[in-house]
C-alpha cells in the first residue's frame, strides 16, 4: 500500500491538507480511485450528477474502468491537480490487502454470568450495533484442502452470495484459509454468521465475523436506511397489532372468557393496565393460582398455542417493580374496601362498579365477567385464607402495627410473651387494651396487611 502512495505523483508545494476532500477549484468534485484507475466523480453520486469538468492534468492512473467506480477512495483535486489523500494508506478497494481489525478477533466468552441471563450459547460481553453488522462476512479457519466450493455452497444456504474470494494476504493459521463472502442482503449474512460461526467444517473450526470495513459508502448508507426502515415498520406493526387486539377484545369480551380465573390473577399483577384490562385477561388465561415460576411456563404455552394473543405487552405498560407486582396481587382484595389507592382504582375501573365488596363477593365480581364453571374452585379458597389469616392476626397481634408490618413469609420471630399482670382483673384489662389497639391499628393499615398476607401463597 505504501508503494502505491509513492507511485502517485503528489504535487510539491501544495499544502497537504488531509481533511479536505473537495476540489479547491470546483468545490464539487470528489476524486475517487480504484484498484486500477481513478476517476472524477460528482460529490453525490446518488443524486445522479454528472462528472464535473475539472481539468486534472496530473491524474495518477487512467480513467474510468468499470470496477473502480464501486471501489473507491476519496482523492482531492488541488489547483487543478489531483492529489491523493490518504488513499494510498487506506485499503482502497474491496479486495485490497485486508487489515486485521479488532472486531475480527474472537473475544473470550463470558463465564461469569448468573444463570438467569446465561443464554444457551456462551457469548462474549459485546454490544452489536448496525455499524458492526455487514453483508460482508469474513470466514476464518477454513481448512486449506480445496473446499472453496463447499464453503460457498454452505453459505449460499442462507442467501444469495454476490461475491466471494479467498484472502491470501490475511494472516491465517497454518493450513487454513480466510475467505471474504459478500451476501446480497444483510439478513442473509446475519443468519449465516449465526449458524456457521464456531461450526466445524471439514475438520476446521470456522470463525465467522462481519467485515464492515469492506463496505463502500453506498453500502453503509443503504445498511443504515434499511435498518431504520425495518425498525419503523416493525414498531408500526406492533402498534397496529396491539390496537387490533384491544379492539377485538373490547368488542367480543365473551369470546375471551374461558380463561377466566387466571385472568383475575393476572389483572392483579399489573396494576396500571386499566384500559388493557380485557386483553390481559384473555392472554393470561387458563391457569389457576399457581406459584409464579410455573405461571410463566403456562403463560408461555398459552401464547405459543394462540399466537394472536400478543397484546400482553400492553398489560405491563407502565407497570411497576417486581416487588410491587407481588404486592399488588393482594392489593386487589382490599382494594374493594379501601379504594383509596389510585392504582387499584384505575385497575378496577373496568369492573362492574362495585367497589364495596367483601371477600366473598369477589367471586361474584368475577362471575359476570367470566364463566362460573372455572372460577369457583379458587375463590372460596382465597377467601378462606383471608379469613383465617385475619383471625390469626387478630388473636396474635400484640400491638397491631408492628406485627402487621413484619413479613409473614419465612421464619418468624418468637411471639412476644403476653405480659402476666399477676392479677386476673389486670390481665383482662390488658387483653382488652391489646384488642382495642389491634383494632385501631388495623383500620388504616388494612391494605398493607393484606398485601403481606398475599405473599404467602407465592
Amino acid at each position, binding site marked *: 500500500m505504501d508503494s502505491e502512495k509513492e507511485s502517485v505523483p503528489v504535487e510539491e508545494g501544495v499544502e497537504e491538507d488531509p*481533511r*479536505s476532500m*473537495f476540489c479547491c477549484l470546483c468545490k464539487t468534485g470528489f476524486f475517487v480511485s480504484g484498484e486500477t484507475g481513478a476517476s472524477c466523480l460528482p460529490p453525490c453520486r446518488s443524486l445522479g450528477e454528472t462528472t464535473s469538468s475539472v481539468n486534472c492534468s496530473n491524474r495518477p492512473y487512467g480513467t474510468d474502468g468499470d470496477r473502480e467506480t464501486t471501489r473507491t477512495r476519496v482523492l482531492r483535486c488541488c489547483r487543478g491537480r489531483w492529489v491523493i489523500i490518504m488513499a494510498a494508506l487506506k485499503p482502497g478497494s474491496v479486495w485490497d490487502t485486508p487489515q486485521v481489525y479488532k472486531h475480527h478477533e474472537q473475544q473470550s466468552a463470558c463465564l461469569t454470568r448468573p444463570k438467569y441471563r446465561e443464554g444457551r450459547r456462551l457469548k462474549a460481553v459485546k454490544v452489536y450495533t448496525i*455499524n458492526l453488522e455487514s453483508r460482508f462476512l469474513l470466514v476464518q479457519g477454513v481448512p486449506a484442502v480445496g473446499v472453496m466450493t463447499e464453503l460457498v455452497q454452505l453459505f449460499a444456504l442462507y442467501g444469495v452470495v454476490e461475491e466471494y474470494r479467498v484472502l491470501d494476504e490475511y494472516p491465517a493459521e497454518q493450513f487454513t484459509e480466510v475467505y471474504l463472502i459478500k451476501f446480497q442482503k444483510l439478513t442473509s449474512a446475519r443468519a449465516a454468521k449465526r449458524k456457521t460461526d464456531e461450526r466445524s467444517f471439514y475438520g476446521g473450526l470456522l470463525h465467522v465475523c462481519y467485515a464492515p470495513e469492506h463496505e463502500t459508502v453506498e453500502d453503509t448508507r443503504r445498511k443504515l436506511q434499511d435498518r431504520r426502515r425495518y*425498525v419503523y415498520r416493525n414498531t408500526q406493526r406492533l402498534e397496529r397489532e396491539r390496537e387490533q387486539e384491544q379492539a377485538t377484545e373490547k368488542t367480543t369480551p365473551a369470546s375471551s372468557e374461558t380463561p377466566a380465573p387466571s385472568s383475575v390473577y393476572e389483572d392483579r399483577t399489573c396494576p396500571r393496565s386499566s384500559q388493557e384490562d380485557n386483553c390481559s385477561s384473555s392472554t393470561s388465561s387458563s391457569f389457576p393460582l399457581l406459584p409464579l415460576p410455573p405461571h410463566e411456563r403456562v403463560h408461555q404455552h398459552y*401464547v405459543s398455542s394462540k399466537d394472536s394473543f400478543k397484546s*400482553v*405487552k400492553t398489560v*405491563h405498560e407502565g407497570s411497576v417493580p417486581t416487588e410491587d407486582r407481588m404486592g399488588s396481587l393482594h392489593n386487589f382484595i382490599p382494594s374493594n374496601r379501601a379504594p383509596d389507592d389510585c392504582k387499584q382504582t384505575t385497575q378496577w375501573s373496568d369492573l362492574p362498579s362495585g367497589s364495596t365488596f367483601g371477600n366473598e363477593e369477589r367471586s361474584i365480581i368475577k362471575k359476570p365477567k367470566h364463566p362460573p364453571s372455572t372460577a369457583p374452585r379458587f375463590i372460596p379458597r382465597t377467601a378462606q385464607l383471608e379469613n383465617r389469616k385475619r383471625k390469626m392476626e387478630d388473636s396474635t397481634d400484640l400491638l397491631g402495627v408492628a406485627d402487621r408490618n413484619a413479613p409473614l413469609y419465612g421464619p418468624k420471630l418468637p411471639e412476644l410473651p403476653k405480659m402476666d399482670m399477676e392479677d386476673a382483673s389486670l390481665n383482662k384489662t390488658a387483653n382488652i387494651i391489646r384488642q382495642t389497639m389491634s383494632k385501631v391499628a388495623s383500620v388504616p393499615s388494612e391494605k398493607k396487611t393484606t398485601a403481606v398476607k398475599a405473599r404467602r401463597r407465592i
Partner: protein
Amino acid sequence: MSGMDRFCASERFEYLQGLVTEFQDTDSEEAKEQVLANLANFAYDPRNMEALRMLQVTELFLDMLTEENENFVEFGIGGLCNISMDQECRDQILESEGIPLVVGCLSSLRDETVLSAITTLMNLSTAASHSKITDSAVVQCMLRFSLTQNPRLSNLATVFLQDYCSQEQVNRARELMEGHSQSAVGIPLPKN
C-alpha cells in the same frame, strides 16, 4: 433475538426489568458491564423497544456516557445507537438533552464508540434537532473522520456529511479547519 421469540410481551418486560434492577443494585463492575451489554443488545430488537422505553433505559444509557470505564461508555452508546432507531426513543433521548453527551463520544479513542456515536447522531436528527447535530464543530470532526484510514469510520462520516449536512455547512467547516489546520490535525483519531 430469536431466543426471545417464545416470550410474550409481559415476560419480556419482566425480564428486562430484572436486568435494569440488577444493574442498579449490583456493586460489581463486571456484572454491570454484562447487564449493560445485554440491555444494549436487547435494544436492537424492535419488540423490546416499548418495554425499554418504559423502563427509561435511554436514561440509563445516557448516564453511562459520562462514566470513566470505557466499556460502560462503549456499551452505553452502543445501546443508544440501537435504541435511537425507534422514533419514540429518539424523542426521549432528545428530551433528556442527550445530544451533547453523544457528541462527547466522538472524542473517544475507541472506534466502536465513535461509530456508534455517529450513527446515533444521524438517528437523532430531526427538524428541531438538526442545527445542534450539524454544529460546525461536529461537521469538522466528521470531515476529519471521513479522511481517516479506517474505512468504517470514513464511510460513516461520509454518509453523515452527504446526507445530513448541506454543502454550505461542509464548505464552511472545511474553511474553518483550514484556518487553523495544525491544531485540528492534533486531535487524536480513534484507534482500531
